[in-house]
């Protein structure tokens, strides 16, 4: 039976727990994927298109989440900060980017019953969500959480306490999604601040992330407190964090400015290739 899976998942070392863990991964990937595919199909039946790349992004995002929480990576990350860091890169940066680019909120709004749709729209326009989804708030939750994790005994706690481990993972994923959504992506984001502010927050968040990575590298013998006995491992993990952070920042910056490029073109009535402009120039 599956309801006990999350509990069994905590008990490591036995083959049965591993199998249960993989089953959980399969459910985690398949259930939302199927829901998304059904919603996309319903939308197409209603005569509105839904780009295949968004569906692909959603499935890729879920696969990355599944990989990150899979027994294989979990075992690797349990006593090794490098494995833990790979988990966090996937959960906090790459999976959120794929999931946000999949525009799940747009899709959901399209298939909800009309009454529920109104509620959802109200929620999207609420002051609380607006504050939470401000890039600065989202960045503080996302990057601040990492500072808390690596500069306090919280990381050490996650290696011994399974509940803490899962709560931290969930926070990393949700905060990553919130931050990514606040910066870029096709989903509706009421009162999203202008692009300059978003770019500045992205720079500040990236700098704070890089700074934390360098701090871990420089003070590997002491950090994270009570966490890892092997400074070389911490240094390798810090480098993973640093370069992985770069990669995610480039990807997010591309998503941000690609949106700018598209809306600027649309405002002038030019599509991707600049057809109108060319036509008038040839005329």
């Amino acid at each position, binding site marked *: 039976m599956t309801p006990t899976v999350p509990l069994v998942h905590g008990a490591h070392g036995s083959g049965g727990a591993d199998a249960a863990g993989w089953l959980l991964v399969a459910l985690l990937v398949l259930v939302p994927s199927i829901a998304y595919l059904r919603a996309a199909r319903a939308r197409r039946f209603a005569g509105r298109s839904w780009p295949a790349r968004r569906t692909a992004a959603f499935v890729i995002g879920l696969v990355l989440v599944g990989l990150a929480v899979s027994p294989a990576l979990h075992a690797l990350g349990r006593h090794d900060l490098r494995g833990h860091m790979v988990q966090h890169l996937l959960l906090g940066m790459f999976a959120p980017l794929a999931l946000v680019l999949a525009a799940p909120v747009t899709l959901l709004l399209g298939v909800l019953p009309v009454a529920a749709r109104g509620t959802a729209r109200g929620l999207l326009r609420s002051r609380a969500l607006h504050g939470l989804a401000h890039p600065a708030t989202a960045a503080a939750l996302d990057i601040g959480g990492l500072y808390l994790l690596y500069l306090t005994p919280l990381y050490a706690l996650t290696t011994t306490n399974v509940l803490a481990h899962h709560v931290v993972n969930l926070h990393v994923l949700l905060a990553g999604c919130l931050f990514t959504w606040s910066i870029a992506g096709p989903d509706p984001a009421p009162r999203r601040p202008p692009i300059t502010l978003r770019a500045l927050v992205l720079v500040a968040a*990236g700098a704070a992330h890089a700074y934390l990575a360098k701090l871990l590298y420089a003070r590997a013998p002491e950090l994270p407190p009570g966490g890892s006995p092997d400074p070389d491992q911490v240094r390798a993990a810090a480098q993973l964090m640093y370069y992985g952070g770069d990669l995610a*920042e480039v990807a997010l910056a591309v998503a941000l*400015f690609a949106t700018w490029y598209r809306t600027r073109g649309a405002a*002038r009535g030019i599509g991707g290739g600049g057809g109108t*402009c060319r036509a008038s120039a040839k005329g």
Partner: protein
Amino acid sequence: MDAPRDGTTTGHEQPDPAPAPRPQRRRSMFVAAAIGVGLMAAVDEIVFHQILGWHHFYDRSSPQIGLLSDGLLHTAEIVVLVAGFFAFADLRRRRALAPVSAWSGFFLGSGAFQLFDGIVDHKLLRLHQVRYGVDLFAYDLAWNAAAAILLLIGAGLAWGSRTEGSAAPRIQER
């Protein structure tokens, strides 16, 4: 590049609702300068920090503020590069790119960054040096001379491009 084809003089607006695009000299220069700054920062970071390891990922001599400013520079460089490329693509798309001005901006931007790094970062703030454990004079000279060469190329191109987007192409036609 496209010049106004119907012989309009500068400053004369066509009544056409979609006027023929004109090269935007200053914007081309500015956008390319941003790319130049970002690219030079990336070259410094990748070639000298990461491949040669002359000055590193983390110089233990750096104060905490230096570390933070390094992180800011690095992420800003990434965002500026991406933003610059999209702005460049936008200029091309609406046929407003002035190519010679853009090249001049690119060289001016990269030279300015190199000179800033060589004088302010290395000498005034002493965040890091080009290299450690050797006589720095030749390295500093090469670093700042490279900056000067880039700036000279940029200035030369800026001089050559000063009529870009105005009536110059018509003179060539005659």
